[in-house]
Structure formats: structure tokens, C-alpha cells
């Protein structure tokens, strides 16, 4: 029996190729059922995202299963195997375990520490559970993977601080205002970056979003997307003083918001804090505005350098994450090892022998002085009873290929701590 993974990801295959072999949920369902039905794999889970397609499996075919899974994937997606030459990678046993843990912890992602992969791994597993294509080993493996992913998110800074411009801007907004529910957001210009930022703010609870653009139609379109309302271009200066967060990204060669306008406006709005996010290039907001009391002005460069810094911070924690993963891989391998018939029989016999000896000693003491012959007979009696009782389970465990029996024995006799 061996545990294996076969797949390709953003490092080994370009997007055009990954598209071809991606599994939509319905396809993944069909594929894992086929794989197990045809006997290529005993257990199967497919993890497929836009950055990876991977088949996890347990197979009796050992190494031969790798080629079998590869050609299955090619056939399933009707892709010429030649095209996928070199794109496939595979890992066995501990390496496969390590690979899944790294994937779940987002160490293998395109953006280090991105949060979605853990959910995708969980979904892949629950789909396989539904299709009943998992068994003892993959169940344990994927439950562990989810735990490892969670553990790394909470114990390291991988995935802690945002690494994209829009996410950094949203984070800053929450550090200034706390809850965003009652804050007013004005989006000036309908660029992609400001759109992302506005959507991020909306996701963090901002309900009052206004969008303005030179073209009113585009403003209306963007407003619809972020759940806000559109404002005619001519009116936006007048609405400035009621805003808390202003995002600008307009193509212009002069500042659209001058510093004296901000100064005037701040005194009108009682110097409530104002967060200005200037995503324009060249800049849209007079940099002097920053000197006005309680104004927080960030331009694209500022946000980008914070994002870069956060990325470095994440990378610093990679060794720590790898250590956690190594620890969990060892634990998993020990668990798997314990499932082998030999080690289970050994533990069972060890436990029985320990009980026999301690009971024998205690009872011999109670009996008082005995002759050597008497003593030997009693000892032989205990040995015979233990051996007779253990004989049948020993033989059957050796014959059985079903790991569930081992698990039951370990559970019934509480063998997990026995060495």
C-alpha cells in the first residue's frame, strides 16, 4: 500500500495547460469515482484550483500507480500526454504527506500565505467523502492537513499581514476607523485597483459607498458592482466633506484635490479623521495634504512598499512553518506505521506480557513459599493462557489486509501508547 500524489501546479505548467487539466467539481466527482472503480486507486481525492490539479491516492500498485494516474488524467481531459511531459510531479509516502501539508498551509501557493487554498483543500476532501472514495488513510491525512493549515495560520505570520495594494489599503482603513459600517467611502475614477479596494472595504462592512467618474455610465456600472451609488462628476467636490475614506485613480496631469481644499474641508468636518488613498499615476492628490491635521494620505508607492515589506515578513516565517510541517509529517508517519500488522502485533504481545508478569509476581507473593517445581508450573500456566488467547488474533492480523482491523485492535486494547 502506498500513499501518493500526482499533479501539476503553477510552477510546472503554464496557465494554458493548467486550464486543460482543471477539474470542475462535477468532473472531480466523476474522476475519483472512476479511479477507485477501475482499481487504479483504493482511495482518491482531487484538489483542483486555478493554480493546481492534484490527485491524492492510496494504491496497492505502488509506483505503477503513478503512471496509471498520469495517463488517466490525460485521457480524462483528452490531452496529448506529450504536452504534459515534464509538467507532472509526483511524491510518495512521507513526501506526499509533506506536499499536501505545504499546500494546505499555502506554502506552495503563488501568493505565499493566501487564505483560500485551505478552504479549497477542505472542499476537495468533503466532495470525496460524499463520493465515498476515501478510506482510513486519506480521511486521516486530510483532517490532519486542515489542522496543519489552521495551525500555521495561527502560529506563524504567514498570511497575517496583507500583501496586495488594495488589501493594505483596507487594513489601514480598519486601523484608523475600526468598524467601517458607518463610514462613508468615495471612489473617484473607476480603475481596477480602486474597484478592488472599494470591494475590499465593502467586504469589511462599509455600507456607504459612492462612486464618481468622468463618464457617468462607468460610475454607475462600478457602483452596481460594489453595492454603492453613482455620483455625477460635477458634484463630487461638494460631497468631499462628508466622506471618511476617499480613493482616487484618475488619469490627469494636475492634482484633482488640492491641499488648501483639504485644509478648508477638514475644518468644516470638525477634523474628523480622513483617509485619502491616491492610486493615481501621476498622483491625483496634492502631497502637501498630508500635513493637514488628522489626514492620512497614502499614495500608490506607499501602499506598494508596505505590501512588499509584508511579503518579506511572511517569507521570514517560512522556516518556522516548515518546522511545524515536519513535526506533523513525522506524527502522521508514526500513525501510519502503527497501522502495520507487525507493529500492532508487537504492541499487543508486549502489553499482554507486561500484564502477565505483573500479575504473576503479585500472586506468587500472596502464595508464599513454593518449591521451584510449583513455581515453574504456575509460570508455564500463565504463559500458556496468554499465548493461546493471542494465537488466533496474531494469525488473523497477519493474514488480513484490512487496516480497519488493526485500528480496531489498537482501539480495543488501547495500544496507542505502547512501544
Amino acid at each position: 500500500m502506498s500513499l501518493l500524489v500526482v499533479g501539476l501546479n503553477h510552477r510546472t505548467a503554464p496557465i494554458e495547460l493548467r486550464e486543460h487539466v482543471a477539474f470542475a467539481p462535477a468532473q472531480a466527482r466523476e474522476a475519483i469515482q472512476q479511479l477507485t472503480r477501475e482499481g487504479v486507486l483504493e482511495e482518491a481525492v482531487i484538489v483542483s484550483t486555478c493554480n493546481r490539479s492534484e490527485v491524492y491516492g492510496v494504491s496497492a500498485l505502488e509506483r505503477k500507480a503513478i503512471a496509471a494516474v498520469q495517463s488517466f488524467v490525460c485521457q480524462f481531459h483528452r490531452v496529448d500526454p506529450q504536452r504534459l511531459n515534464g509538467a507532472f510531479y509526483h511524491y510518495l509516502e512521507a513526501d506526499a504527506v509533506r506536499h499536501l501539508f505545504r499546500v494546505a498551509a499555502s506554502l506552495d501557493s503563488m501568493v505565499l500565505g493566501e487564505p483560500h487554498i485551505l478552504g479549497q483543500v477542505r472542499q476537495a476532501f468533503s466532495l470525496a467523502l460524499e463520493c465515498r472514495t476515501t478510506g482510513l488513510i486519506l480521511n486521516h491525512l486530510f483532517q490532519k492537513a486542515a489542522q496543519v493549515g489552521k495551525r500555521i495560520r495561527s502560529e506563524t505570520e504567514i498570511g497575517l499581514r496583507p500583501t496586495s495594494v488594495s488589501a493594505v489599503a483596507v487594513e489601514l482603513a480598519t486601523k484608523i476607523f475600526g468598524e467601517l459600517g458607518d463610514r462613508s467611502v468615495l471612489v473617484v475614477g473607476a480603475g481596477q485597483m480602486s474597484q478592488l479596494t472599494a470591494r475590499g472595504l465593502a467586504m469589511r462592512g462599509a455600507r456607504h459607498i459612492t462612486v464618481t467618474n468622468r463618464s457617468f455610465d462607468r460610475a454607475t456600472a462600478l457602483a452596481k458592482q460594489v453595492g454603492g451609488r453613482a455620483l455625477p462628476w460635477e458634484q463630487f467636490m461638494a460631497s468631499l466633506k462628508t466622506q471618511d475614506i476617499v480613493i482616487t485613480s484618475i488619469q490627469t496631469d494636475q492634482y484633482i484635490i488640492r491641499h488648501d481644499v483639504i485644509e478648508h474641508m477638514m475644518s468644516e468636518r470638525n477634523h474628523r479623521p480622513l483617509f485619502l488613498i491616491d492610486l493615481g499615476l501621476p498622483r491625483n492628490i496634492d502631497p502637501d495634504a498630508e500635513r493637514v491635521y488628522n489626514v492620512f494620505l497614502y499614495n500608490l508607492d506607499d501602499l506598494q512598499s508596505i505590501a512588499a515589506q509584508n511579503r518579506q515578513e511572511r517569507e521570514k516565517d517560512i522556516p518556522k512553518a516548515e518546522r511545524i510541517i515536519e513535526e506533523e509529517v513525522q506524527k502522521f508517519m508514526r500513525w501510519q506505521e502503527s497501522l502495520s500488522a507487525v507493529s500492532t502485533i508487537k504492541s499487543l504481545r508486549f502489553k499482554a506480557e507486561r500484564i502477565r508478569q505483573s500479575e504473576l509476581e503479585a500472586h506468587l507473593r500472596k502464595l508464599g513459599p513454593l518449591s521451584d517445581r510449583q513455581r515453574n508450573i504456575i509460570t508455564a500456566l500463565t504463559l500458556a493462557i496468554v499465548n493461546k488467547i493471542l494465537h488466533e488474533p496474531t494469525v488473523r492480523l497477519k493474514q488480513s489486509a484490512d487496516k480497519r482491523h488493526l485500528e480496531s485492535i489498537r482501539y480495543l486494547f488501547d495500544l496507542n501508547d505502547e512501544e
Partner: protein
Amino acid sequence: MSATVFNWMSVLCYLVSGSGYVGFLTLRKPHLGRMATGFLALGLVIHFIALMRRAALIGSVPYGDLYGSISLFAWDLGLIYLGLELYLRQKSMSIFLLPIVIVLQAAFALFQRVPTEIDPWVKGWLFALHVNISVLAYAAFAISFIASVAYLIQHWRLRTHRPGRWSSLLPSLDLLERVNLTSVILGVGALSAGILTGVAWARRAWSHASHRWDAKITWSLLVLVIYALYIILQKRRGWRGQRSAWVAVGGFLVVLFSYTMVNLFFSRLHAYF
């Protein structure tokens, strides 16, 4: 067990709690945070028992001397912080607060002597009320001070475009401002009540007119004025945020002065607070 054992046990709990908070904030292990909060709560319970023991030993309020009042102050501080932490679900202000509580309670455990002689007038419910309310006010001002410092750090990081670890550790500016305002309002209310009960008690205790006014009252009124100013400025243009945070810092410095120098050199009636 003697009161001393309880004192040191509470210090130990605070130390464990404090290192738990530091561990939680740097290593981000959730169970460390829960442990830290648990030990803080345990420390407060033991601290309370220690105060009660002391009271039983003296046969009067446990804060009839300087050390006792310091211990009561530390206890109030820990209690208000714990309430804030549970209410706001925010542990990061602990790194400012726990060191203060630890130092105060350790100093108390180290230097305290059980007073052999108690002033006969240090008794009665009015005196107890006066001291408890006043100490509560000081603790509230201390919390406001901590929130102000945290605000100034957060503000400085955000204004200089270097949020970094400090910014993600500390609560939002908005929240810190609200914590600050809430504790100042609590403090002003408590201090006003403290002054009134103090005056009422003094009238009862002494008939002599020269005992009616004390330098401490002057300083307490000054503290009241500064914090009242803070509350007013909070809503004023050009003053909310950073500038009013500095006012709160200034207010607390006056509180510290009133707590130490005034008691030692100027006041005849306030030996300890």
C-alpha cells in the same frame, strides 16, 4: 496562610499572566492568550484575598497606609483592564498595563509593613467609600494614559507610513479614542465623588476649620479641570485625536505628581493618596 504568601502568589500570577500576554502577542498562540487572561483573573482573586487578610490583621481597612493604597490601586487597575479586555476582545493593551500592576504589587509585597498603630479616624464607611472611589478614579486615569500612549504610537506609525508590527498589534485609533474617553468620564465622575465624600468625611472627623481645606483638594481640582478640558476638546475642531491624547497624557502626569509629591510635601491630611 499569611497575607504575605497571598501577596507573593498574586505577584506570581501577574508575572505568569504578563509573560503569557507577551508570548501571545509575539508568537500568536491563542492558548497563551487565554492562559494570560486566566492568570490575570486568578491573580486578582488572590490579590483580593490578600487585601481582605490584611484588613483582618489590621482590624481596619487594608489601605490605611501608603502600601495598602498602592496595592488597592494595582488591584483596581487590573480589574478595569480585565473588564475592558473582555468587553473589547482586545488583549494588546496588556503589554502596557501588566508591567505597572506587577511593579506596584511586587513593591507592596516587598516593602509593606503591617501598621501597628492605626489612626482612630481611618475608620467608618465614609472613609472607606472616599478612598475606594478616589483610587478607582486614579486607576481609570491610568487606563486613559495607557490608551493615549497606544493612540500616539498607532497614530505615529500610520502617519509615517510605516504601520508594521506595532500597528497590527494595537487596536484602531477609533477604538483607542473611545477607550480613552470612557475611562476619562469614569475617572472624572469617580474623582468628583471622591472629593465630595472626602470633604464630607473631613467635616465629620474634625471640627477644626484648618482641617477643612487641604493642598490635595487644590490638586485634585486641577486634575478635574484638565480632564474636563480633555472631554470638551474631544469634540472640538482641530483638537480631537492626537492633540487631545497629549492632553490626557498631561493629565496623568499631574495625577502622578499629586499622588507622590503632593502627598509627601504639601498635604497634611493625605499621607497616602
